[in-house]
């Protein structure tokens, strides 16, 4: 377990140099949507897109510096590399979702569109959606690497969010006010099951991969 934590920590250090870039991007969203009455909600939606994209950047840093050679020198099993990468990706993505939830909370206070209960429910829902996105992306990233897989995997967040929108045709954020209290939990559990299957698939892919 300590190797998994160490690997996730290493992933965070690999991702860290990108922090400023993505924070600026988020501020740009706020600026762009400033004229809209739903500026914060739109920004939260855009941030959710980022949450789906950011874990992929762990693979980008790895590809750029050929860090697979570092992993092969370290005392860590390939399975631990995979679990560590999921853990690191989840921490980064959940950080982003937390920002989304905070934006929604601010929005709910400003506009009274959502109750706090709905924000918590929405956070659970977004977390579940994020887990599903990550579960779909990571096996491709492990198999193909960031450069080959990025276009496809970056489309996934958009497709999943489009799917959510299609379910509730009135729009994603408006739909949240109609959700019952258990839907968030259902999404989180579904996401976790998808992640478990995805970890299994990625482990098989990574163990079979020759560097």
């Amino acid at each position, binding site marked *: 377990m*300590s*190797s998994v*934590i*160490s690997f996730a*920590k*290493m992933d965070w*250090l*690999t991702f*860290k*140099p990108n922090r400023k870039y993505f924070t600026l991007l988020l501020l740009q969203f706020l600026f762009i949507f400033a004229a809209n009455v739903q500026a914060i909600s739109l920004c939260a939606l855009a941030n959710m897109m980022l949450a789906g994209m950011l874990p992929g950047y762990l693979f980008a*840093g790895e590809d*750029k*510096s*050929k*860090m*697979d*050679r*570092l992993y*092969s*020198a*370290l*005392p*860590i*099993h390939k399975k631990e590399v995979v679990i560590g990468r999921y853990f690191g990706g989840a921490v980064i993505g959940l950080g982003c979702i937390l920002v989304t939830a905070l934006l929604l909370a601010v929005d709910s206070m400003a506009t009274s569109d959502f109750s706090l209960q709905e924000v918590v429910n929405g956070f659970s829902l977004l977390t579940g959606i994020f887990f599903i996105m990550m579960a779909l992306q990571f096996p491709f990233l492990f198999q193909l690497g960031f450069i080959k897989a990025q276009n496809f995997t970056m489309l996934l967040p958009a497709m999943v969010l489009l799917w959510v929108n299609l379910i509730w045709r009135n729009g994603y954020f408006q739909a949240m006010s109609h959700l019952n209290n258990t839907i968030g939990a259902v999404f989180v559990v579904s996401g976790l099951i998808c992640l478990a299957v995805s970890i299994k698939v990625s482990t098989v892919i990574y163990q079979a991969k*020759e*560097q």
Partner: protein
Amino acid sequence: MNTFLEVNNLCKTFSRFHLDDISFSLPQGYIMGFIGPNGSGKTTTIKLILNMLRRDSGEIHVMGRDAVSDEKEIKQDLGVVFDTHFFCEEWNAREVEKAVGGFYRNWDSTQYNRLLSRFHLPKDKKVKALSRGMQMKLMLACALSHDAKLLILDEPTSGLDPIARDELLTILADYISDGKHSVLFSTHITSDLEKIADYITFIQNGKMIYSGSKDELIDDFRRVIGGPKEITSLQKEKIIDLRESSTGFEGLIKTSDAQDFQNLQLEPVTIDAIMVAVNKGGAEDE
């Protein structure tokens, strides 16, 4: 004498390359030079030792343990340096320690900082801003900060200037001086090995040419030099890599044939000259 690294009958086939029946062993307290021309299979062998590739057949034991089943334990005692750095380019030396140190039971932060000072490595400079020699030293500092018993170096001197190469050789000589550590040093710059290697393993086109003592390899050959008309046709047949010019000739002979060349000047050879001669096809039977 403990064997630190033992490779037996190692085989690996790719679509265009075949590593065929590689065997060698490295005892504790010595440096082995792993030589061969570009594309001969040195890096493939090292990748197999590190489990980056799956072997088709053969065995690899590191400090008596199987390289596959005991991989994680073995790597606690293994230090690795590649030809180019393997750290995230945006890290500095402090972040390298944060990223790597957590994986090792015996990570010694004091030793790491001591090595950074010894190698004159700045702690705040990004890896991508370091020179090639500095990047190599940073990998070496990591490898030496967790009490690695065996160091595996894959072409660490390629692209380095002579001063940086000499520094590395001094560090390696220090490293094995206590008799408890060993080094496998892959390179095609054989002059580095003349200075420090005790053993040589020589492969070419994926096949073993020689594995044994460096001195024995050098003693096996002599350089023969003579004027334009001093050589007989019988002697010509025994010369490996004969080069003739208007002023005379030179070539390599096996030391066992030296009595046939008593009328000519015989000199010691370099590993480089042996490698070139073998590459030209003169001594595959060695």
